């Protein structure tokens, strides 16, 4: 997957976590937390969704890598570059 595809996938995950949220204005650099009102339970869900969809295991000490879109894509790129997008 390209960084662009990974970003799309993260948007898709956020949509499933918060179906009422408008994500069209989401910016890549600021933290999700400041833009989306996500709490720790929701962060667990990003981790769980990645595991559910792509069997990616993220250790608890690396959760902080998922703070913003930018850092998430950067963190996932080496892991996901050889993966195909899940349907």
């Amino acid at each position, binding site marked *: 997957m390209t960084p662009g595809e990974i970003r799309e996938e993260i948007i898709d995950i956020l949509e*499933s*976590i918060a*179906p*009422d949220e408008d994500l069209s204005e989401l910016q890549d650099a600021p933290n999700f937390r400041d833009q989306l*009102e996500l709490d720790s*339970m*929701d962060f*667990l*869900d990003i981790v*769980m969704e990645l595991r559910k969809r792509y069997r990616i295991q993220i250790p608890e000490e690396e959760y902080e890598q998922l703070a913003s879109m930018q850092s998430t894509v950067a963190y996932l790129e080496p892991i996901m570059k050889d993966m195909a997008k899940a349907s």
Partner: protein
Amino acid sequence: MYDTIIIGAGMSGLAAGIRLAYYDRRVCILERHNTIGGLNSFYRLRGRDYDVGLHAVTNFTPKGEKKGPLARLLRQLRFRWDEFALAEQVGSTIAFPGVSLQFGNDFDLFRSEVHRQFPRQKDQFEKLISKIVDYDDLDQEIFDLSTRQVLTETIDDPLLIEMLLCPLMWYGNGREHDMDFGQFCIMFRSIFFEGFARPLAGVRLILKKLVRKFRGLGGELKLRSGVDKIHVQDGEAVSVVLESGEELLGRKVVSSAGWLETMRLCDDVSHVDSSQAGQLSFTESVSILDCPPRDLGVDRTIVFYNDSEKFHWQKPSGLSDVRTGVICSPNNFAYDPDDDAQAMTDGVVRITSLANHDSWSALSEQEYALEKLRCYDDVLESAVKFTPDFRGHIIDTDMFTPTTIRRYTGHDNGAVYGAPRKRLDGATHLKNLFICGTDQGFVGIIGAIVSGISVANQHLLRD
């Protein structure tokens, strides 16, 4: 072999089940009865639908609000806000002799009512509000403080203290006389800062949404499957044995049966101290009217009443205590006019009173029927001091008592809010057995759902 076996298909068990099934865990919910819901359930009688448990959903926040328990649980269970079809209350009242406080889903109304009725308590009340705003859910030491002590230190007028305690104890206090301060803050926020709402179709709509989602995700639900015991080996729950004798293997077990009730199921536990059980149970007197209640001036969503200056929150010595109660009319919500308003053709008034489980369960069948009639009359006699008299318009009635609650919840003493001591972390003496629901600490429909979610997140999904 299941990843998790859940005991009880009430709100908390279903919510935990959805979380697990969503993340592809093999999960089975066991329910003793032939229907789901536990305390929050529904039935049909003489051609009419009745709700048990739910008067109103608390913690109402409008669509688009991202904070608070309602928004959080919708996100966690992947529901859209509209799916629960919540209609807001029209307005509620706390009524004591000669003084009443109105409130709705906008906190400023309640604040101005307190300022108007208790002008000398204005600053004190604001001080209390900041304490409630500052309260941190996770601090067990502050959670355990005595609410009466905190209130006495903050507010001088004993009548205002009783009027604040009345609705909050009614809607979520398993302890007699006093209340844990943490529970008080949670209830205060859920009722006064957030508010009441209800789906037109009642509790069955929410239950059906939950069970449909659970099954749609591949979860298994077994009705008529009462649990006889949890089999323990070397400090671990290894299986759950049904009353039919069938044995189900599970890696983890979560029980919504209640703390003592769960301990009694464990075959490694030889003694359970039943004196720790909750004592507070209720009767509910349901009246069906020949017209909408508001035509008779019964126009509040909920009235919390108490017939003297002192509010007594304790197990009655006789069958029931009708000095205090809750009057709820499910007609009095602001339903969407496009919604099929005809679905609620009957006027309904439900009145909840305190009751003593042992006294009710000691009655013979004949006495029970007679006492129900007598109690119903006493309840209405007391309630019409606080709401216009609707007794000339009753076309049908029903009543449930602590024995009914006991039968459907399995709680000792038919204790609606479970045992006084809550187990906030959900942990037990076994590393793979957890509890959720009433005795974990959250009450009400929203509280129960949040309980199931948080126990699933904390203990069942992290491996």
